[in-house]
C-alpha cells in the first residue's frame, strides 16, 4: 500500500488535510460548502522533512497508538515510519509547551529548518466541493466489553490487532512473538473468534474479516516459530473471499493449525503461570478444558468512533448497527444526494472490497460531476528543455546532510571533495537539506550558472524523493532523465549508524556509482499516446450493463456485447433477494436504461472474434449472425459472468424432486410447485464448492439457501426445512437472516467432507441420510424436495482470456492485477474486470465492482491520453531478428513481434510497458534497451564499485 500512500501525498490534484474533521456542511449536491476544522500539529508539514533530528530532544513520553499502545513514543513523533504527510506531529496532551508553556527544546533542534511551529492554532477551512465521499473506516470492538474473556484483566489476553503489531517486523518487538506478562515466547496460542461479532449482547452482525485475519496471523506466527501450537476456536469459518478457502485448507494441512468448532464457556487465569484455561464445549456436546500461554481475541469491526458525529454533521442516516444506511441496489449512495459512502463505514468488509467500493463510489461522484470534470485542476506550464545532445557531460553533485541524518554519520565534506575529483564533475556542493525550498532554488541557479547538464544527488531514497528533484531540474530546463540519486541515507547512514568510516566509504562508492551512471544518462521523452475515448464492455449481464451505464453517465460512448439474445445474464434467474427487494424490477429497469441510452451501443447475439492493439487504441472484431463489425476503442471491461453449476451428484438430473437453489428460487417466485412438495425440504450446501475438484467457496450459496428457506417458510409455515451445511457463511449484515432462519425453526445440520450426506431413491421416494454429530448417529430424512446449493462457475472465460491475453486463476475466474490494491484492473493496462467473471458475488457486490471497473476505465478515457514514463523498452531493429522471446515473456503484453519492411521485428507498446526489463535481459541479440536502466548504465555502476575496491 505504500505506493498509494506516496501517490496520495504527491498527486497535484489531492490536497491532504490531516489532523482535521468536518465541522459543517451547507448547500446542495453539486455545490456544497464544507467547513473543516484543522487542529494544530505544531509542526509545519510543508517544511518538515521527517529527518527526525528533533525527537531525541523531546523529553515527554506518550503511548504509541500506531503500535496499539504496546510501547511508548515521544510526544513529538511521526505516526509511523511511512506516514503521509511525512511530517512529525506534537501530541498536545503530553507536550510540555502546550500544557505548561515550558521546554521548547524541539524548536532549538530544528533551528535550521524551522519546521516546529508551537504557535499554530486551530484553523477553520471553508471548502467548496460538488460532492462528498465518506470513508471514515472502522474501529476495533473494545474487547473489555466481553468480560468473560478477561481482556484488560488478564495480561496474556490480547486483541488480534495487538497481535498483528507484535508479529510485524517493524512492530514494537521487531517481530518477536512474546507475551505481555513475562516477555517469554509462548508455545501454545489460542485464537477466539467472533468477539464482538455475531453476538446479541454486542454486535449481531458478522464482521466478515476476522476468520481470515485470524488464519493469516496464525500462519504468520507459525512462519516465525514453526513449533508453535495454535488452535482457533470458532463457530463457522468464513473464508468466502476470492482464493481464501485454499488458504484455510493450507492453514490446516500445511501449517497444522487446529480449528475447533466450539462454544466457549469461559476463560480462567492461572495465577501461578499467567496461562489461560479455556473451558469449551464441542459440537458433540462434550466439555473440554485446555491451557494456553497466550489468548488472542479476534475482535470484530465497528464503524469508526468518528462516524456517528460525521453522519450527523453530514446529515446522512445510519442503519440500526450504526453503519451508513444504504440500499442493496445502491450500496455507495447515502440518504443525502451528492454524498456517497465506501469502505467499512458501509458494512464490515475486507481490503479488496473496500478498494472496489472506493472506485465504485468515485464512479457515482464522477457521473454526477462529469460536466465540470477538469475545471479545477491545472497543468503546469514548463520552460522549453535545454538541448544537451552532443554536449560533454557537465555533472553537478549535491551531497545532502539531511540535518544530522547523513552528516552525523558520514563525513559529508570528504564525500563532496572526492566527488569533485571524479571525471566530468564540474561542480560539487553540500546542502543541509537538499529538499528544502531554498535549496531547490539554489540547485536551479547552479544549473544555469555552471551549465550543468547532469545532476547527481547523494541523499535519501529515489523512491520517495526522485520525482521532487526531477521536477526541480525540469524547471531549470533539464530533461528529467538527466538525474540520478545515490541513496546514502536510508541504505547507508541510517543502517550503519555506528560505523562512521565504513558508512563514509560506502556512501563514497554509491556516489561514484551514481556519477558513473550519470555520465551516460540521456534525455528521454515521455511518450504521449492518444486514447480513443470509447469503451468495449464484454458481457451484457447485470455487471456489464452497470459498467456501461456508469461510463455513459460519465459521458463516454460504449459498446456492450452480449452473446445471448437478451441482456441480463445470470440476474434473469434471480427473482428476489434476501432483503426482499425486487431483482426482476432492477433487471428490467437496468435493461431499459441501457437501451434508452444513446451512448451505449448494444450488440446481442454477438461474440468477440478478435482483439488487437493496446490501451487507448484497441481494435476489436465481433460478429453476430447477420454481420461482422470492427470497432476501435480505448479500454475494455470484461464482464463475461458466471452461472450455476449443473450438479451430477445427489441424484440431480435423475430424480425430478432434486433441483438446484436457482431453480427453486424461480419456482418459488412463479408459485408453480404444489404445496405438498414443501412438506419436508432438505437443502445440501457446498454442492460442487469446497471440494477437491473445485476447492473455492462460492460465497453466496449460504445466503441463497437461507433466502429460499425463508421464502418457503413464509409461503408454507408448516414446512420442515433441513439445511445440511459445513460452515454457514452469512457474512456482514446477512447474518441476521441466518438468525431469523433458526428462529423460524429451520434446522441446520453440520456435515463434513468425510461424512457427506447420502441421497438415495427407493420406489421413487427420495431418502437423505446424514451423520448428526450432536446425537452422534445417522439421521434419515425422506424429503419431498431436495434443493442443492450449487457452485457458481465462470462462463466462457478461457476464450476471452486467450483473445485478450489476460490470466485466469486455477478456478477459471479472471485474475486481477493485485488481489488487494488493484481488484478490478488487469496487469495489462486498459483492461478491467467485474462481476461473476472475477469471482462469485451477490448483486450488491457486482454492482459496486461494475461501477469500480467503470471508474478505473474512465481514467484513460477522460484524460484522452496516457503518458509513458521514459523507463520503457526500446528495440534496436537492426539487431532484432524477430524471435519473439520478448513477446512470450512480457508479463504485461507490452512487446510484440510485427511484420516490417525489413522482416519481423519486436515493437514496444509504450502505452503499457512497465519498464521491468525482462525482455531486455532475455533478448539473445541484446537488441532491447531500457530507458534509464540500460545494460551500459548497470555495468558502469558495477564497474565503478569494483574499481573503488582496487583503489581502496
Amino acid at each position, binding site marked *: 500500500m505504500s505506493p498509494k500512500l506516496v501517490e496520495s*501525498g504527491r498527486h497535484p490534484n*489531492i*490536497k491532504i488535510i*490531516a489532523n482535521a474533521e468536518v465541522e459543517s456542511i451547507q448547500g446542495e449536491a453539486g455545490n456544497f460548502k*464544507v467547513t473543516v476544522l484543522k487542529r494544530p500539529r505544531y509542526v509545519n508539514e510543508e517544511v518538515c522533512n521527517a529527518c527526525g533530528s528533533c525527537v531525541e530532544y523531546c523529553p515527554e513520553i506518550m503511548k504509541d497508538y500506531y503500535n496499539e499502545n504496546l510501547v511508548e513514543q515521544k510526544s513529538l513523533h511521526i505516526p509511523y515510519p511511512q506516514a503521509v504527510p511525512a511530517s512529525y506531529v506534537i501530541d498536545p496532551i503530553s507536550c510540555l509547551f502546550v500544557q505548561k508553556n515550558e521546554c521548547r527544546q524541539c524548536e532549538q533542534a530544528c533551528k535550521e529548518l524551522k519546521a516546529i511551529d508551537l504557535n499554530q492554532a486551530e484553523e477553520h477551512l471553508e471548502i467548496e466541493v460538488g460532492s462528498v465521499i465518506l470513508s471514515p473506516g472502522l474501529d476495533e470492538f473494545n474487547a473489555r466489553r466481553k468480560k468473560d474473556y478477561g481482556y484488560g484483566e488478564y495480561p496474556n489476553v490480547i486483541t488480534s490487532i495487538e497481535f498483528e503489531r507484535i508479529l510485524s517486523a517493524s512492530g514494537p518487538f521487531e517481530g518477536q512473538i512474546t507475551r505481555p506478562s513475562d516477555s517469554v515466547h509462548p508455545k501454545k496460542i489460542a485464537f477466539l473468534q467472533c468477539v464482538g461479532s455475531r453476538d446479541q449482547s454486542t454486535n449481531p452482525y458478522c464482521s466478515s474479516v476476522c476468520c481470515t485475519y485470524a488464519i493469516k496471523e496464525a*500462519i504468520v506466527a507459525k512462519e516465525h516459530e514453526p513449533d508453535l501450537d495454535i488452535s482457533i476456536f470458532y463457530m463457522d469459518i468464513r473464508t468466502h473471499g476470492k482464493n481464501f478457502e485454499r488458504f484455510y485448507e493450507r492453514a490446516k494441512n500445511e501449517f497444522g493449525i487446529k480449528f475447533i468448532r466450539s462454544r466457549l464457556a469461559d476463560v480462567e487465569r492461572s495465577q501461578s503461570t499467567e496461562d489461560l484455561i479455556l473451558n469449551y464445549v464441542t459440537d458433540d456436546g462434550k466439555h473440554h478444558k485446555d491451557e494456553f500461554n497466550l489468548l488472542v481475541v479476534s475482535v470484530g469491526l465497528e464503524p469508526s468512533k468518528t462516524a456517528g458525529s460525521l453522519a450527523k454533521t453530514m446529515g446522512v442516516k445510519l442503519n440500526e448497527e450504526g453503519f451508513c444506511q444504504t440500499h442493496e441496489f445502491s450500496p455507495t449512495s447515502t440518504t443525502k444526494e451528492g454524498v456517497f459512502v465506501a469502505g467499512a463505514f458501509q458494512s464490515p468488509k475486507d481490503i479488496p472490497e473496500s478498494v472496489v467500493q*472506493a472506485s465504485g463510489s468515485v464512479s457515482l461522484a464522477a457521473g454526477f460531476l462529469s460536466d465540470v470534470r477538469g475545471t479545477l*485542476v491545472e497543468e503546469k506550464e514548463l520552460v522549453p528543455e535545454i538541448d544537451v545532445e552532443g554536449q560533454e557531460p557537465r555533472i553537478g553533485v549535491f551531497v545532502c546532510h539531511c540535518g544530522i541524518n547523513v552528516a552525523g554519520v558520514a563525513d559529508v565534506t570528504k564525500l563532496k571533495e572526492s566527488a569533485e575529483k571524479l571525471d566530468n564533475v564540474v561542480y560539487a556542493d553540500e546542502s543541509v537539506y537538499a529538499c528544502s525550498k531554498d535549496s531547490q532554488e539554489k540547485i536551479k541557479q547552479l544549473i544555469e550558472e555552471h551549465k550543468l547538464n547532469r545532476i547527481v544527488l547523494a541523499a535519501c531514497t529515489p523512491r520517495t524523493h526522485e520525482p521532487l528533484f526531477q521536477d526541480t531540474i525540469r524547471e531549470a530546463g533539464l530533461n528529467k532523465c538527466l538525474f540520478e540519486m545515490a541513496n546514502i541515507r536510508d541504505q547507508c547512514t541510517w543502517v550503519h549508524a555506528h560505523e562512521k568510516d565504513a558508512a563514509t566509504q560506502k556512501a563514497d562508492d554509491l556516489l561514484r556509482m551514481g556519477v558513473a551512471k550519470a555520465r551516460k544518462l540521456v534525455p528521454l521523452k515521455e511518450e504521449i499516446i492518444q486514447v480513443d475515448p470509447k469503451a468495449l464492455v464484454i458481457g451484457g449481464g447485470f455487471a456489464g450493463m452497470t459498467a456501461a451505464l456508469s461510463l455513459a453517465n460519465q459521458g463516454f460512448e460504449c459498446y456492450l456485447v452480449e452473446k445471448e439474445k437478451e441482456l441480463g445474464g445470470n440476474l434473469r434467474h434471480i427473482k428476489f433477494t434476501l432483503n426482499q427487494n425486487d431483482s426482476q424490477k432492477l433487471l428490467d429497469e437496468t435493461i431499459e436504461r441501457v437501451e434508452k441510452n444513446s451512448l451505449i451501443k448494444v450488440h446481442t447475439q454477438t461474440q468477440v472474434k478478435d482483439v488487437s492493439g493496446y490501451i487507448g487504441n484497441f481494435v476489436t472484431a465481433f460478429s453476430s449472425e447477420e454481420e461482422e463489425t470492427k470497432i476501435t476503442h480505448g479500454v475494455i471491461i470484461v464482464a463475461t459472468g458466471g452461472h450455476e453449476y449443473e450438479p451430477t451428484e445427489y441424484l440431480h438430473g435423475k430424480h425430478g424432486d432434486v433441483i438446484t437453489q436457482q431453480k427453486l428460487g424461480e419456482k418459488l417466485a412463479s408459485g408453480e410447485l404444489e404445496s405438498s412438495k414443501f412438506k419436508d425440504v432438505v437443502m445440501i450446501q457446498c454442492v460442487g464448492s469446497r471440494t477437491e475438484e473445485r476447492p473455492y467457496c462460492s460465497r453466496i450459496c449460504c445466503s441463497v439457501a437461507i433466502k429460499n428457506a425463508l421464502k418457503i417458510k413464509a409461503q408454507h409455515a408448516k414446512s420442515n426445512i433441513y439445511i445440511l451445511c459445513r460452515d454457514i457463511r452469512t457474512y456482514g449484515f446477512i447474518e441476521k437472516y441466518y438468525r431469523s432462519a433458526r428462529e423460524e425453526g429451520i434446522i441446520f445440520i453440520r456435515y463434513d467432507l468425510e461424512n457427506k450426506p447420502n441421497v438415495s431413491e427407493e420406489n421413487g421416494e427420495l431418502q437423505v441420510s446424514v451423520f448428526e454429530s450432536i446425537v452422534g448417529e445417522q439421521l434419515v430424512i425422506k424429503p419431498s424436495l431436495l434443493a442443492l446449493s450449487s457452485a457458481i462457475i465462470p462462463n466462457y472465460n478461457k476464450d476471452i482470456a486467450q483473445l485478450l491475453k489476460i490470466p485466469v486463476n486455477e478456478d477459471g475466474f479472471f485474475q486481477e492485477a493485485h488481489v488487494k490494491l488493484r481488484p478490478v484492473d488487469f496487469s495489462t493496462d486498459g483492461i478491467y474486470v467485474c462481476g461473476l467473471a472475477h469471482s462469485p458475488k451477490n448483486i450488491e457486490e457486482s454492482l459496486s465492482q461494475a461501477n469500480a471497473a467503470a471508474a*478505473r476505465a474512465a481514467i484513460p478515457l477522460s484524460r484522452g491520453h496516457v503518458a509513458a514514463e521514459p523507463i520503457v523498452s526500446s528495440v534496436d531493429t537492426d539487431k532484432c531478428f524477430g524471435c519473439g522471446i520478448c513477446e512470450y515473456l512480457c508479463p504485461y503484453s507490452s512487446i510484440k513481434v510485427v511484420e516490417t519492411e525489413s522482416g519481423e521485428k519486436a515493437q514496444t507498446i509504450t502505452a503499457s510497458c512497465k519498464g521491468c526489463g525482462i525482455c531486455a535481459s532475455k533478448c539473445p541479440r541484446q537488441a532491447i534497451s531500457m530507458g534509464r536502466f540500460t545494460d551500459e548504465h548497470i555495468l558502469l555502476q558495477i564497474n565503478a564499485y569494483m574499481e573503488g575496491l582496487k583503489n581502496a
Partner: protein
Amino acid sequence: MSDSKKIGAVMVVGGGITGMQASLDLAELGYLVYLVENSPAIGGTMSQLDKTFPTLDCAM
C-alpha cells in the same frame, strides 16, 4: 439547479485505504480532491497490518 453552478471538486472524508483509492481515482479523473483525515497521517487500519490475506504480501 443549473450545471454551471456545479463544482469540480470532491471531498473525501477518511484517509484509509478506501479514502486513498477514492482520492486517487478522482484525482486521475480530473477532479480536485480534498482528503480530510482525522488523525495526523493517512493510512488507516491497513497501515497497521503486517501482512495481508491470502498472499501474505506485506501490507505496506
